[in-house]
């Protein structure tokens, strides 16, 4: 019997709480709880620092900040051009906001800009002040492209997970039960995937993608790589399909239904749990992927993580933008995780483990 990997769907999904018997003494339990509380606190420290550092100006980064610092006041004697370079400010945006059409000499100070163009000093000051306070966030959103990258990533992730789940279920539906020798062979071929590091085959994969399939700079390249199947999806869906009672399948056959009828009428509608397991394990992998996006997309189309790499550089001057970029690239996934935390937990306990 080789079909026991996830066989009874109810079993791996037991909640952690209250499943073990045991009479752990109160002191021991308190001790464990204390340790866990400290550990979870420490676990959150890096995230906390990431949040704070997103608000710490780069030039102030050598000082310890435990909370968002009070923004320093912008000096009206700062040079217009220097500010634009340092804070990555879009000059044309400034001109639009201020209603300036002419050329601004970059060596002018802000005070001179204000007098030359008849602007109230307060207005100029307020404009720059917000850049200084939220510089990191401004830098990543100012270009107006951040959301494009987010949408691109969401698109790739959703399409990959939906199609990948469907294909995985199709694979599982056929392999379930391992009635034939070739079923087992195909299954083991998929299992081989966990022992193949992407970097091992990245050079030839790149060759195939760009020279044979001609898929450079297409989301399709990424989607194909994410839906190609692997150990996890095959394990999850094969076990699910094997767990469907035989009677259901026989009743479809007696009614004259063929295999596709069984697949679409019985397997697909009941596949919510295995799909959720598959989705919650695949999502972080796809969302956080660097290598494929970096290689197969142009910078304009980058998914979020390759996009954040662009804020770092040889002499990464704007640390604040790097940290803000990372923070905002992580937040959407964190939000999904926190909303569906129970699902993620069940999936983590059931997923690759029982393979």
């Amino acid at each position, binding site marked *: 019997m080789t079909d026991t990997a996830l066989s009874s769907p109810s079993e791996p999904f037991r909640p952690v709480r209250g499943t*073990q018997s045991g009479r752990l003494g109160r002191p021991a339990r308190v001790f464990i*709880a204390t340790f866990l509380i400290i550990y979870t606190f420490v676990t959150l420290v890096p995230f906390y620092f990431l949040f704070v550092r997103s608000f710490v100006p780069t030039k102030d980064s050598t000082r*310890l900040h435990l909370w968002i610092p009070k923004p320093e006041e912008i000096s009206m004697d700062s040079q217009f051009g220097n500010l634009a370079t340092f804070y990555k400010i879009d000059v044309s945006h400034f001109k639009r906001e201020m209603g300036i059409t002419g050329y601004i000499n970059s060596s002018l100070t802000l005070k001179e800009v204000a007098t030359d163009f008849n602007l109230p000093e307060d207005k100029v000051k307020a404009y720059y002040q917000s850049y200084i306070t939220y510089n990191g966030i401004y830098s990543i959103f100012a270009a107006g492209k951040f959301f494009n990258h987010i949408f691109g990533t969401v698109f790739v992730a959703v399409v990959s997970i939906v199609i990948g789940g469907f294909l995985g279920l199709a694979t599982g539906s*056929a392999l379930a039960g391992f009635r034939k020798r070739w079923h087992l062979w195909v299954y083991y071929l998929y299992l081989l995937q*966990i022992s193949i590091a992407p970097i091992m085959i*990245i050079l030839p994969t*790149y060759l195939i993608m760009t020279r044979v399939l001609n898929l450079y700079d297409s989301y399709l390249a990424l989607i194909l790589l994410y839906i190609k199947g692997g150990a996890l999806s095959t394990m999850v869906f094969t076990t699910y399909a094997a767990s469907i009672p035989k009677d259901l399948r026989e009743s479809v056959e007696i009614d004259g239904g063929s295999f596709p009828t069984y697949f679409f009428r019985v397997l697909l509608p009941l596949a919510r749990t295995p799909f959720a397991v598959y989705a919650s394990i695949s999502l972080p992998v796809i969302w956080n992927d660097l290598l494929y996006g970096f290689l197969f997309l142009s910078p304009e189309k980058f998914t979020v993580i390759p996009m954040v790499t662009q804020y770092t550089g040889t002499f990464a001057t704007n640390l604040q933008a790097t940290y803000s970029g990372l923070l905002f690239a992580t937040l959407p996934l964190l939000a999904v995780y926190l909303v569906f935390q129970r699902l993620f937990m069940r999936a983590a306990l059931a997923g690759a483990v029982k393979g």
Partner: protein
Amino acid sequence: MSAPKKLLTTERKRTLWEVVFVAPQLILYVGLTIVPLLISIPIVLTNRANFTDLTVDAVGLSNFVNIFQFPLSDIFFSALARTVLLTFLNYVTVFAFGLTLALLLFEGKFGGLFFTIIYLPYMLSGFGVGILLIMLFSRDQGSLNLLFMEMGVLKTPFDIKDPSITAVALPLVLGWRYAGFNMALFLSGLLSIPIETIEASRVDGASYLQRLRYVYLPQIVPSIIIATIFCLIGSFGVFDEAVGLGAFYGNPAAEFFAISVFKMGFGTAIGQQIGTLAEGMTMALVVFVPLTLMAAYLVRLQKRLQY
């Protein structure tokens, strides 16, 4: 005679449908996982310099000799040594973080919130881990450096650009990131132990260590094997974290094996070409094929243990 005939055709029909359902994903899988493995075999026997190289000559096995000779051997061995050390330390954290937390949650019967928070760092990207290391341990602006100095715990700050600091800090932060992942692996093993077995050991008056040794450990061997495979393959493939640490921007401490392979294929794009594409593929095969075989053996072993 008609009944078996009909049976035969239904069976044949079913096989046909099964092939139709298996084919789409299998074609993709074979095309993008197995074929790349196969086509790199003829390429490693040539002097193909890059992806657009049109003048390709067969050079026999000389690439296999080249990677062990100067100048490539320098890169190869130092990257390999760094990666092996990382793999070893990562493996320590698998148990130090993952197994410890799993046992604590299991014994304390804690669930929900602790699990959610411990698993949370897994949502951070590998690249993010690299950035985080710089944010926390960079010499001048690392938040933890600054904090420890302020508290007086630290006299001279850590410097993440120092290879020996990276060698320790990276596995530590990776252990933190994968703590929840590994914990879940072990926890699911622990949860599948029949309650009666644990009860029986209690009744027999087994000490905790005895219970750990004779009841838990044998039952979580499949989990340990899976965790070993993930750690082995993951650590040798460490790439995103190294990029976050500035591997492309002159941080030699982040030159892990995957970075070397990448540079041999795509180095021109980042202005750091080393070796040829064919040599890069050779390097990847020489290191990863034994690993893949080892992992495949472990998968088989794990399967056999389970049934």
